């Protein structure tokens, strides 16, 4: 991605309950603090109940953008769930899109009941790579479970996003945003999770 770029379209996607909305809000706050125009369009509500969730985060140094990214215009996709990464790519992706994906699936009820199929991981990998410039795989949920709670997966993913260094936002700047939103034990575990994501060694 062009380092001189001054306009970014980021999508954070996942399944209701994974902490999608909070992640996008924190990133947005960090950019507003840096003086960027930030617009976030998020889909939730009924989607909290097991549906696909997606936040569009649009960061511009020039002007306020609309809350929805047009077709094919995503620069970065952070996916808390593998099939959701694919779902978003099929509409918003382009050959230059970079994808950071959590490897742990959440099975839809129709997959659990056997009515529909969930693709094999190898197939998902292949399609993700066909439809993007680069894919980073992160075992965020598994690591979050080790740290004590699956919800920390979203902070690990943000750590990974900062690590790949595609956005003009530093780890330190994001830490400051975190400390404005949380305190005590909650801040501490979130900072640890962020650090964990940053440490991630990407297997490509």
């Amino acid at each position, binding site marked *: 991605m062009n380092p001189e770029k001054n306009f970014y379209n980021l999508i954070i996607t996942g399944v209701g309950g994974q902490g999608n909305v909070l992640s996008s809000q924190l990133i947005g706050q960090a950019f507003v603090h840096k003086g960027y125009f930030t617009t976030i369009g998020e889909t939730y*509500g009924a989607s909290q109940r097991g*549906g696909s969730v997606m936040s569009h985060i649009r960061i511009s140094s020039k002007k306020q953008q*609309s*809350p*929805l990214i047009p077709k094919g215009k995503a620069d970065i996709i952070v996916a808390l769930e593998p099939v959701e990464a694919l779902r978003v790519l099929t509409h918003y992706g382009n050959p230059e899109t970079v994808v950071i994906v959590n490897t742990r699936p959440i099975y839809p009820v129709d*997959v659990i*009941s056997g009515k529909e199929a969930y693709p094999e991981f190898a197939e998902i990998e292949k399609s993700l790579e066909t*439809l993007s410039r680069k894919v980073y795989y992160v075992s965020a949920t598994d690591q979050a479970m080790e740290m004590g709670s699956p919800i920390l997966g979203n902070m690990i993913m943000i750590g990974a996003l900062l690590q790949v260094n595609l956005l003009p936002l530093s780890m330190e700047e994001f830490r400051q945003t975190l400390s404005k939103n949380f305190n005590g034990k909650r801040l501490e575990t979130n900072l640890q999770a962020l650090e964990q994501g940053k440490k991630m060694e990407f297997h490509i």
Partner: protein
Amino acid sequence: MSIIALDAPGKELLLMGNEAIARGALEAGVKVCTAYPGTPSTDIIENLASVAKPMGLYVEWSINEKVALEVASAASFSGLRALCAMKQNGLNVASDYLLSLNLIGIEAGLLLVTCDDPSAHSSSTEQDSRPFAKLADLPLLEPSTSQEAKEMTKWAFALSEEMGIVCLMRGVTRTSHARGNVTLGPLPSPDGRKAWFDKTRQRNTHPVYQKHDQLHRNLIRLEEIFAASPFNQYIGPERPKALIITCGSGWLYSQEALELLGLEDAVGVLKIGTTWPLPTTMIIEKLEKTPKVLFVEEVDSFLEGNVKELAADFSGQIGPKTFFGKRSQHIPFFGEMNADRVIDALGKIFQVRYQARSPRYEAQAAEVAEKMLPSRALGFCPGCPHRASYWSIKNALQLDNRQGFATYDIGCYALGRGPAGYYLLKTGGAMGTGTGLASGFGKLASFGFDQPVVAMCGDSTFFHAAMPPLVNACYNKSNLVMVILDNSTTAMTGFQPHPGVGRNAMGEEVAPVDIEAVCRSFGAKVSVTDPFDLEGTKQKMLQALEDPVGAKVVIMRRQCQMLKGKEEKLPYQVRVNPEICIGDDCGCDRLCTRVFKCPGLMWDKKLAQARIDEVICVGCGVCADICPEKAIIKEEIR
């Protein structure tokens, strides 16, 4: 405390449209704020409630939108600025009083915010609430960004006061729930004003003719005010080849579409922030300078119709125009707007080809979309009491074996119309409708109707609109079973308290209204059960179904897991014993994963057995009681 009360003029924050509205109200010195929760409007009052005490406000969750408007009006009549918020369906409820209040008029500024949900992301309809402004002859504002939502809100209070009428503001999902930059303004210092109702004036609709006439005169004055409003804006060339007329979220989508098509120098955009009454002169002036007009707006052709009306009046002056929009099918009549829809319309009008991606990429993406994306049907959360309730109701109706069915209204439990509730819900619609319909079905016995009818109702819905139909059923001796799924919160919109909970929006403890006692006092026969007691719940349902006389109420009470989970630890450690689970071979037809379908359960394809997904399972233990083989083991966590 919410950041909306930050006393830092000039500071820039990232605010949701709804937060910006709440901030604007604070900057305007609002004193009383009321609402019934409804997505996408809920956050307005939620944010104000969280700052009520330090900011010296009175904030309430009213039991329904009509009452919310009445409570807000009382404040206005007493000289206090008031805000009332609701979603589109809510305005239908409040409209009965609104259509009197327009004639009655107000004292201190009164703003009614309604938030529409184009595409019905979280609604049972995608109704456009703007026609209510025209119907009631009241001013209507539509913000495009969070910043504008704040400024407009502040201005609306002053406008309402100047005109002596309630002012309407319409948000949509993508303005109310979008976040954007907002620069804070100053907060007023407390004025210590005493609330007081001037008894020398009567506040009613009489004399009706005169007051109706006055409303129409107001519209003329409003047009003058709106003509100078900064919320109406034009960008583009002096004489554009075409003009986009837009409002709300369409403002930014239109600009983006023009940028992507490279048409900024050919096409102008006129954004109307004051959408009723329209600023006539300003619009006519722009129409004179262009041959083509495209309307970009969310849900109905409100702007489109009203501008065309003006164009007809001024046809001699502006000459012939070609109009594009919903009527010409350049813009769809349903669903929410986005830049792609505007690109599509402009592409057709100007015959330009726009390709978001190469045909090759498009084909690859389409193949993936078709073959690799399992759908995510909405269902109840893991550990949700509704799943257990539906399970028992389904089993009871099956045992009863008289082709019984259920009716419903609005809330989480309406998901029961799909597989999550075994398709038991056959008809419903508005708040309280389930009970009203059941009251009707329950009177058809003399015409040979012999199916049992179960009305599904939520606890918050009970207070909102289901008490009158239950009284109706009792009074008219209708035979029905009403199930109140009491999860002790308004779960659908994010856990707001209601009169049954024992706490109000201000966080004060109050004596909870006893739903059981209320129903009994109407004359209904009431039983209470814990939905996690599957057998007991089924028996209570069967008893109610078998009783042929009058209204039976079964209250299925257990707190929403989303709320309970926050307060308590998981009761059980749950696992599947692979020695016992016989999967597809068990006569159960995989009851757990095919029928009960809690997302906390998985199907292990290799082992052909059920498994618990420890990331999702909350340990409610209900599935252990469902497995006929007793293969699912629950162990109490100490």
